[in-house]
């Protein structure tokens, strides 16, 4: 997604009011952004606390600012600067975390971002988790407040078109409840369920924002007294599952099942690719199919 992000930034945000800061990352991805933004592109070096503070200073003076890094270096290292300097002033700074979840796989756990959405949600930052490459340009249209953009990989079925952007989108129809998938996992679930007859599968919803008010009525109707599956490459604490459970309580929605698959961190103490960790958490295509089969037909 980072190439789509770079293209969208150049197309939509290469204006005098924008700055782009990176924490020394973006090789083979941000070169064109650097060329386009010229002196408004700053490599702040390996100093994320300062980078976020500088971004806040720029934003306080009227600029809109992107702050780019590998996800954990973007939200965890400078956490207090985000809290005090950006959020207390409600500044238009967009923190761009590349590689949400286990996306940096083999790089190891220091490079994974498993609790980023919870941490940013807790600060009141608007959290955006694009599911598809096309989502990014829509998301960049509205950067007026603290924002966290979690980039991953678009893995939807080949040669498929997506529907117009919405924070909650039904991307695959089904008659047996619904899957709410956070960001890119929606594409994976879409791929996994394609060959299952519509009457035997749940619908698949791509969830890209946590805002409860954006959940459409049709979603509630689909899950009433039926199975609800929540999948997210994020820990359970403060993730989509918890948010959705709270929203269900608010709306007095009862489901027949509430099945939640989420990031288990490192249950075996061994490390590998994003796919390896997804398999361990049941968040791969096979795991999703097993989850659906078990809940739909019973076992």
């Amino acid at each position: 997604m980072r190439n789509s992000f770079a293209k969208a930034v150049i197309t939509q945000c290469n204006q005098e009011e924008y700055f782009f800061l990176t924490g020394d990352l973006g090789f083979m991805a941000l070169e064109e952004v650097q060329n386009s933004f010229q002196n408004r592109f700053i490599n702040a070096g390996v100093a994320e606390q300062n980078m976020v503070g500088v971004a806040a200073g720029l934003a306080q003076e009227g600029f809109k600012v992107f702050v780019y890094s590998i996800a954990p270096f973007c939200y965890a290292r400078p956490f207090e600067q985000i809290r005090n300097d950006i959020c207390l002033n409600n500044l238009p700074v967009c923190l761009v975390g590349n590689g949400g979840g286990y996306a940096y796989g083999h790089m190891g756990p220091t490079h994974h971002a498993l609790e980023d959405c919870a941490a940013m949600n807790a600060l009141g930052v608007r959290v955006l988790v694009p599911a598809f490459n096309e989502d990014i340009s829509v998301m960049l249209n509205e950067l007026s407040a603290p924002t966290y953009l979690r980039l991953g990989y678009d893995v939807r079925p080949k040669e498929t078109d997506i529907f117009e952007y919405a924070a909650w989108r039904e991307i695959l129809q089904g008659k047996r409840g619904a899957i709410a998938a956070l960001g890119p996992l929606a594409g994976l679930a879409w791929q996994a369920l394609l060959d299952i007859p519509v009457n035997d599968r749940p619908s698949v919803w791509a969830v890209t924002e946590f805002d409860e008010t954006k959940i459409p009525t049709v979603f509630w109707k689909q899950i009433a007294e039926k199975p609800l599956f929540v999948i997210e490459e994020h820990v359970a604490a403060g993730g989509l599952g918890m948010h959705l459970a709270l929203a269900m309580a608010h709306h007095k929605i009862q489901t027949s099942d509430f099945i939640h698959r989420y990031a288990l961190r490192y249950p075996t103490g061994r490390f590998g690719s994003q796919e390896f960790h997804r398999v361990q958490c049941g968040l791969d295509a096979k795991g999703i199919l097993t989850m659906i089969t078990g809940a739909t037909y019973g076992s």
Partner: protein
Amino acid sequence: MVKKRFEELLNTAKLRLLKMHYTSNSGHLGGNFSCIDALMTLHHRIMTSEDRFILSKGHSAGAWYVTLWSLGKLQDLDLDSFSKEDTLLPGHPSGKGIPDLHFSTGSLGHGPSLAAGMALAAKQKKLDRQIYCLCSDGEWQEGSCWEALIFSIHHRLNNLTILIDQNGLQGFGTTQDIISCHNLTSRITSFGAEVQYIDGHDISQIENALRNISLESPRVIILNTVKGKGLHFSGTLESHYLPLSEEQYQSAHLKITAEQEK
């Protein structure tokens, strides 16, 4: 004559600071009295309405509030509410009710980066604007200060001035004993900033240092100060925390008044 009037104003501000902390039963007097000379000089003698100031050592909020009061930007009623219920003036500056406040400070190590961002913004907009940031000396144990210093020097932010209130005392001892943080001048100079080391209670030295324009790099002015200057517990750790008793308040009041009448 002008200097005489400013010194009178400075003493009036010190008395008001003393009263404000006494009536609110607040501590942190030491760090306020070590920097009020610099704050008053900066705001009254140097800064224009275009310039920006960031109080990175947010625990000296009182001295800054009183400085704003001396400029007519805060009223007596505001100061009377300092650190009390339903106030706009908490113990560390925050919120939207304080004139000229750009950021909420109190957690140390944030100001230099914020100031660097503002200095960069001024350069980008081609504004003739100076950015000033006041830090404590213990604050430079925060790595983020050094990150900001490296950044500011690299980007030649010569519109940025960092003042460091070097009173030599921090939360639980002296800066020298705790983490050998006493030789800031040589350390910061070695990074490439222009550093001036002056008597932080000498108005002329403060003013001269602030008027000494830098051509190439950010300026750092290290203010050699006494924590709780002029108070009964000056130069002691008690001045970092303890509020004043009635007797101590009266004694300090007499001392500052006598200074004023010299």
